[in-house]
């Protein structure tokens, strides 16, 4: 176990460093940025080097992880051989799992609970490493396997495998410590953390490199033609090159902070920090009204979600008294190890086989009146014992269930804001006002992914009710965003709505139980969406316009951009040869669709989710290829734009190529090495099984186990559906924009109301304006009138009265007090005048005075005291 603890320490050190390096870069650029080279040119290299170093460290940590915990093969197609049609069937890894497990499980099997390592001090804070390898769970699953499934050695190994969930947590530093709350800077590291570190730092590195080229305009003074000053001229301002990279560095630090955070409080802090960074970066050209309002909008809308998150945090802390994800181990005064269970252990305790249950704290909190009556009748210890005895009974009565739901919904609220889910999606398209690298990094690949990440991280605590809500929100989002994307003409907005739509996919996947599917899509989407954004940035860089209607035929002039963007488009629509090979999106989207289909089979009443997913796939294909066709194929629509189009410099195209390669291969797995397998390793304990429940918000639902979706019957349908819808979308787009079989304008005319509705983005902004902004303005006007009319006049009266009083006082001051002081001052002055003649400025005279004074003092002392100076 020492080895494992060392691994935790190693990983926490590596990832902690990778997390802090961008902060150092931020500080360096903050203080010295403008001095780094001409116009701060070198700040780009500082930031890029920092994030590159982070990437290197993350990669090293990744390698360390892979060596210590090699991922197991999850045979997606093997489920049928092992009767995976059982709803909650585990996935067995068949023949080729044995030797892989030999080493890994040899450890896990014998570790038992001695797996706690002695706490080691780092900086005076107990750093502890908890490893969630639990034999009780293994035994229970084992028993379940015996009872329900065919069972062989491989299954045994798999049982061990699914119960072994390598994760490490600990605290670097405690900010505040009380019996009921520990606020600390800590880490929670499992394969999801490691994977996301690699993804985030990799994409961020690419985008930093890209941005050095994209932002080079900022190196010298800029005349912003979109800002018209009152004088009629355009704004002329110095470049803000270093400030941009400063923001990027801070953003990377914040994002990595969310990923590594060991507790919800820390997540919240970095959550807000990410929001601030987003605000900085969207408002990069803050002189533009559109940019500054977009920044404000993003921040305010996020705050709405964060309010819900705060409620969730309060629900959790108030009832459970901890915000840590993992268990905390500390040593008490007697030297015993005290395990302070974290959220996951409380909600899914090991004694209960990691099944979801309402934690004791919530039950007791919900039954506070009964607890009070018990406490009134007996002594404290007895009451505590009685309460402990009653808890399970109360839990069976469903007490506290609502608290768990509130907590889940609250946290999800925050995720909605950050991941731009309907109805809080309105900020993301507007955020495209920021520079394209920002859009690529912040608003497609990472920051918006934070919401999905947190939902995934928080997944064990979510009840079926919450999951259904999540699924519906995701479905609605995906559909609405996709429809709006159909009619957008701004190239970045199309991508923005596609981002919203894809985030909806992820949420949908998580909601219907596809934990791996959702996070898998998160990873692949990060690659291809950053690629797409950077391609669009390259196009914008070349055309100096965002409007697709003025583009066209760019493929010849910008081959790198065009082809890499095609790779991105194919990846996002999930193109591939069914059942053989495909782009990265093929794998992730298929698993989402499969899970949605499974959910529909288990819960027929929620079939709409499946239709939304499938329909969304077609819409995605359509609008993505509409974008690509309009931009790169056909004849140039605007000669003025076309004539000075050029390919972007190598520093911008190189990241495109790198990312396009990743967009293609990110979903592939090489034997057991693959993103999906790695994610499977991080699957929260207990969530491999299905979950049945609900009743508070919806009728009872069953969230099926994800493994079941790998069943061929489901998988086949899903894959075919995905392929068909995507192909249909692409063909339709080709028909519209390549073959010109149909005139899009004609369609728009025919469907005028629908088109207008979509062009106005479902009137969300207008509705919000009516519902929230206008009333707020009205209330503000009322308050203002109250302020001015009533309160101000009262204050004015007091002020007037004070002035009158003060006038009297001033008279007294001037005549009496000042008179006294003046008399004193005059006396001092005249005395000084008379005395100044003593200061003759003659050194020798002063010496004489000293001597005379000494002699005089000596004589006086001799006379007054009859002793001699030197007593015998």
């Amino acid at each position, binding site marked *: 176990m020492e080895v494992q603890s060392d691994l935790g320490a190693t990983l926490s050190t590596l990832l902690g460093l990778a997390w802090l390096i961008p902060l150092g870069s931020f500080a360096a650029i903050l203080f010295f940025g403008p001095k780094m080279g001409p116009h701060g040119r070198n700040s780009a290299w500082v930031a890029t080097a920092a994030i590159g170093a982070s990437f290197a460290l993350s990669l090293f940590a990744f390698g360390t992880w892979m060596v210590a915990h090699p991922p197991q093969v999850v045979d997606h197609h093997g489920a049928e051989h092992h009767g995976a049609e059982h709803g909650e069937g585990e996935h067995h890894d068949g023949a080729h799992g044995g030797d892989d497990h030999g080493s890994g499980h040899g450890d896990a099997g014998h570790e038992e609970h001695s797996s706690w390592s002695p706490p080691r001090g780092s900086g005076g804070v107990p750093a502890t490493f908890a490893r969630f390898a639990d034999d009780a769970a293994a035994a229970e699953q084992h028993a379940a396997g015996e009872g329900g499934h065919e069972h062989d050695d491989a299954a045994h190994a798999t049982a061990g495998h699914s119960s072994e969930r390598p994760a490490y947590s600990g605290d670097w530093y405690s900010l505040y410590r009380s019996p009921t709350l520990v606020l600390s800077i800590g880490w929670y590291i499992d394969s999801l953390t490691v994977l996301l570190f690699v993804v985030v730092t990799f994409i961020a590195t690419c985008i930093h490199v890209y941005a050095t080229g994209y932002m080079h305009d900022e190196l010298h003074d800029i005349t912003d033609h979109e800002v018209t000053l009152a004088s009629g001229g355009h704004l002329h301002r110095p470049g803000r090159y270093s400030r941009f990279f400063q923001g990027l560095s801070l953003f990377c630090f914040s994002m990595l902070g969310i990923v590594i955070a060991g507790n919800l409080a820390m997540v919240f802090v970095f959550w807000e920090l990410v929001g601030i960074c987003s605000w900085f970066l969207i408002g990069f050209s803050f002189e533009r009204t559109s940019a500054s309002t977009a920044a404000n909008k993003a921040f305010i809308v996020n705050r709405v979600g964060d309010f819900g998150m705060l409620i969730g945090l309060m629900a959790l802390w108030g009832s459970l008294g901890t915000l840590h994800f993992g268990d905390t181990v500390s040593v008490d005064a007697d030297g015993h190890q005290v395990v302070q269970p974290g959220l996951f252990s409380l909600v899914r305790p090991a004694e209960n086989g990691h099944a979801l249950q309402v934690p004791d704290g919530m039950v007791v909190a919900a039954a506070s009146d009964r607890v009070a009556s018990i406490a009134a009748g007996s002594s404290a210890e007895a009451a505590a014992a009685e309460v402990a005895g009653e808890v399970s009974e109360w839990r069976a009565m469903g007490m506290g269930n609502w608290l768990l739901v509130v907590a889940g919904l609250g946290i999800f609220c925050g995720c909605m804001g950050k991941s731009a889910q309907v109805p809080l999606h309105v900020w993301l398209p507007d955020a495209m006002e920021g520079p394209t690298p920002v859009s690529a990094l912040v608003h497609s690949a990472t920051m918006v992914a934070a919401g999905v990440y947190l939902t995934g991280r928080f997944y064990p605590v979510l009840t079926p009710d919450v999951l259904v809500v999540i699924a519906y929100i995701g479905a609605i989002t995906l559909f609405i965003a996709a429809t709006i994307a159909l009619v957008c003409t701004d190239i970045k907005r199309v991508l923005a709505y596609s981002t919203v739509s894809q985030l909806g996919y992820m949420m949908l996947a998580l909601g219907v139980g596809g934990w791996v599917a959702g996070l898998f899509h998160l990873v692949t989407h990060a690659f291809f969406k950053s690629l797409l954004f950077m391609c669009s940035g390259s196009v914008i860089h070349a055309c100096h316009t965002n409007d697709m209607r003025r583009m066209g035929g760019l493929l010849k002039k910008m081959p790198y951009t065009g082809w890499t963007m095609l790779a991105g488009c194919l990846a996002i629509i999930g193109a591939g040869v069914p059942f053989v090979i495909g782009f990265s999106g093929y794998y992730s989207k298929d698993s989402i669709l499969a899970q949605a289909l499974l959910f529909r089979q288990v819960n027929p009443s929620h079939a709409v989710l499946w239709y939304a997913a499938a329909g969304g796939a077609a819409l995605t294909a359509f609008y993505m290829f509409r974008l690509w066709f309009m931009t790169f194929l056909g004849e140039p629509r605007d000669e003025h734009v076309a004539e000075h189009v050029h390919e972007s410099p190598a520093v911008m195209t190189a990241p495109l190529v790198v990312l396009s390669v990743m967009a293609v291969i990110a979903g592939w797995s090489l034997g057991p090495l693959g993103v999906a397998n790695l994610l499977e390793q991080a699957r929260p304990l207990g969530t491999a099984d299905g979950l049945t429940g609900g009743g508070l918000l919806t009728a009872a639902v069953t969230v099926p186990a994800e493994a079941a979706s790998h069943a061929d019957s489901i998988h086949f349908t899903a894959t075919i559906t995905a392929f068909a819808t995507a192909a249909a979308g692409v063909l339709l787009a080709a028909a519209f924009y390549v073959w010109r079989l149909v005139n899009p304008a004609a369609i728009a005319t025919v469907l005028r109301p629908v088109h207008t509705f979509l062009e106005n983005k479902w009137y969300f902004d207008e509705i919000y304006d009516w519902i929230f902004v206008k009333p707020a303005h009205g209330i503000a006007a009322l308050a203002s009138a109250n302020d001015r009319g009533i309160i101000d006049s009262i204050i004015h009266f007091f002020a007037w009265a004070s002035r009158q009083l003060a006038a009297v006082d001033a008279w007294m001051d001037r005549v009496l007090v000042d008179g006294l002081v003046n008399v004193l001052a005059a006396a001092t002055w005249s005395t000084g005048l008379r005395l100044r003649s003593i200061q003759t400025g003659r050194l020798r005279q002063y010496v004489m005075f000293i*001597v005379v004074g000494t002699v005089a003092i000596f004589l006086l002392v001799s006379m007054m005291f009859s002793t001699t100076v*030197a007593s015998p």
Partner: protein
Amino acid sequence: MSSSVAQLLPVLAAAEGGLNWHGFFFLLFALLACCLAVAVVLADNVVRMAFYLVLSLGATAGLFFLAGAEFVGAMQLMIYVGGTLVLLIFGVMLTAQEPFVSIKTPVRDKVLAGLVGGALLAVLIQAALSGPAWSGSAAEGGGGVALAAGQPSATPLGMALVGIRVDGDVASGEKSPEDGQVRSGYLLPFEIVSVHLLVVLVGAAYLARSKRRKSSGGQGADLSTGGMR
């Protein structure tokens, strides 16, 4: 010869009727020191004043040797006489232009100074004679002379300067440094003085450096000359 000397100046008389060299040298050095000090006051030429001062200080060093403070005496010669006075003469010569070598003092000032100085001297001498224990105690102390004759002063002083006291009680064996009862050393003052000297050197060099800025910058010239008027 010896008897007549002894009658004239009993302080020179030794018990066996010969000449008391200690008394003789004390008288010699004391007279030298005092007379030369007075000569410093009376001289008008600065260089001569410095010359008399050097001799006076040298005679004082002799007094120190007589008092058994050989290290201090040598130090007096080295630093006071050798160092300080050379510096002083430097200053004299650098500033010695004919009109300033002697600057006359009004007679009134001299008389006044004489009166005040006389009063001070009277007070000090009265104090010097007021302690009965301060005169002729060598006679009462007995063994003090023999001890003092061979008592080296350099090493104890050096040890005291680095913080260890080996004199007094320690030397006589009554106490040992381990007791913590002995008087404290002077390490800290020693260090402070050394730093002080360094600072003084730097400061003096800064103050006395030639003001070349006059030619280069008009502003600086105004400040350095006109500013003092």
